[in-house]
């Protein structure tokens, strides 16, 4: 197949724009991991669940299409809270396997409920700004992806503000660094952790809706790939690093789209995973991560 530099730059451009959704999912994983040093495997499934709730509000309740972007994040925020209570709140602090396994259970549960309700078939999702398409010299830019990128930057700014400029952010960071000490200082760590889960859930819901809107369909099959891509973004960005997750999100989006062009859809993901292995060998702490000396 023939392609020139214009095709390559175009595909990188599209990839970066689509990468904003990966950045959002990676950001959610990072928030939860940063708060508890534990992994929430159900996170991307809850995001897709939120997108489904948003879609249901349009198709079943007959609300205007834009309401999906309000109901969806709210629903996945609630799902995030539910996952926290069911899989993390009552677990022994030192046990990392049990909450991980429980959240895998929650991943199955959310996915299977969706499959049961929709009979497993994909549903079409309303597109945002379907007609918008800009030209920049030789290159075209999809308006809806640009919108997604804009929204993600807005949310990243909001999260950074929340973490570093508010009292809640201070409490979250304290609870993540010294859970026992912050409890002794009067910080309600459980409430703080629950808030983090809800916040990450809302982010995930928005990401889920953006993915569904730009792909055009919503399917329970999206949950697992989104989980894996989100985890890869988290690791390449550096565990617990917020700017790392954001930059890695765009990077993975670009890299994936470039190899989609060069090697086709069947082989695309192999190269993304290879990239992860290269990082694990040469930079195991990711782009911006600090050295991890514990599990």
């Amino acid at each position, binding site marked *: 197949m023939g392609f020139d530099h214009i095709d390559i730059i175009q595909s990188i451009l599209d990839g970066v724009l689509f990468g904003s959704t990966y950045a959002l999912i990676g950001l959610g994983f990072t928030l939860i*991991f940063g708060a508890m040093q534990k*992994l929430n495997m159900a996170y991307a499934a809850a995001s897709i669940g939120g997108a489904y709730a948003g879609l249901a509000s349009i198709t079943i309740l007959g609300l205007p299409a834009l309401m999906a972007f309000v109901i969806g994040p709210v629903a996945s925020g609630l799902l995030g809270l539910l996952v926290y209570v*069911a*899989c993390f709140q*009552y*677990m*022994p602090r030192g*046990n*990392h*396997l*049990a*909450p*991980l*396994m*429980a959240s*895998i*259970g*929650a*991943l*199955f*549960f*959310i*996915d*299977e*409920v969706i*499959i*049961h309700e929709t009979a497993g078939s994909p549903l079409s999702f309303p597109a945002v700004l379907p007609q918008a398409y800009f030209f920049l010299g030789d290159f075209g830019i999809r308006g809806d992806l640009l919108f997604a990128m804009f929204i993600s930057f807005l949310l990243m700014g909001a999260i950074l503000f929340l973490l570093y400029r508010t009292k809640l952010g201070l409490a979250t960071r304290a609870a993540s660094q010294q859970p026992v000490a912050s409890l002794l200082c009067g910080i309600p760590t459980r409430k703080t952790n629950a808030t983090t889960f809800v916040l990450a859930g809302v982010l995930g819901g928005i990401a889920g809706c953006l993915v569904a809107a730009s792909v055009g369909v919503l399917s329970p099959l999206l949950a*697992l790939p989104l989980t*894996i891509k989100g*985890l*890869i973004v*988290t*690791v390449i960005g550096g*565990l617990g690093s917020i700017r790392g997750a954001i930059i890695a999100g765009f990077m993975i989006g670009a890299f994936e789209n470039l190899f989609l062009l060069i090697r086709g859809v*069947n*082989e695309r*993901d*192999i190269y993304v*995973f*290879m990239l*992860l*292995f290269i990082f*694990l*060998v040469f930079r*195991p702490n990711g782009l911006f991560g600090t050295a*991890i000396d*514990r*599990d």
Partner: protein
Amino acid sequence: MEYYLGVLQTIGIHALLGLSAYLLLLTGQLSLAQVGFFAIGSYVSGMLTVMVGWHIAPALMVGAIMAGFFAFLVGFPALRVKGLMLVVATIAFSEIVRLFFFNLNWRVQVDGLEVGPDSTQGFREIRYFAANGWEQSHVVVLIWSILALVMILLWWLDRVRAGAVLRAVGEDELAAQSSGVNLMMVKVAAMTAGGIIAGIAGGLFAHSSTYVDHHSFSILLATFAISYPILGGLRNVFGTLVAVIFIQGFIIEGLRFIGDYRNILFGLLIIAAMNFRPQGLVDGNFRSDLAKLLGLKPNGGSNDA
């Protein structure tokens, strides 16, 4: 009858897969790469019996060695990292293997028929058992004897120094290292042994199902593999077998009549089990709990076999 034999085969294969993850969990490594080794074992041994015409025994062995070799290779970069990073690295490995076989097209002519892996169409012609007059019950005996052998080996491992070293690394790496344990060697050895067990399980799976494709080796199966030992507990090898019988025998097969609700139930059960028994179903207190439940006095563990 055929149906029950099929269930027994599934339980045996999944128990082997669970035990391969169990061995790694003993050293504190949560690996989702087991399904990758399982896939390598399936394809390699399947290709040997179908395309080269080997007997099942050497084919299984070579499949297991290949899987162990890749486990050895992947062990070095992957075990530099811990916890979450290892989970992600092993997911990536399993997906690379799955996508490799998804793209693998290697058709050859055997006895006038074109056979071999056919990329997206899967690998369809693994009919060694049927072609050589094996009955379903013979296959069950083969699978369960290998399972028994592996269980005895792992049981014995827990009785000798090597097992103590494995558990020491799992309990506290720093303390183990201070006591002169070579962490890298122990972890890579556990990874390799786990890979070999998963490879055998894969070979058995390919031959008992006669057909494999990339759907057979999804991350879903990897999560099943780790869920057995975690649900069953790391106290001994029987926990894993109990968990496999419970999940494959009871939830998947026994509750078939409730339709797809059992998939929903499966997720809920894992959440409930982890909340109420975070150390696994068969944990250290299992004996005394069982004794209490039966109204017997708990016996201070002196008869602990």
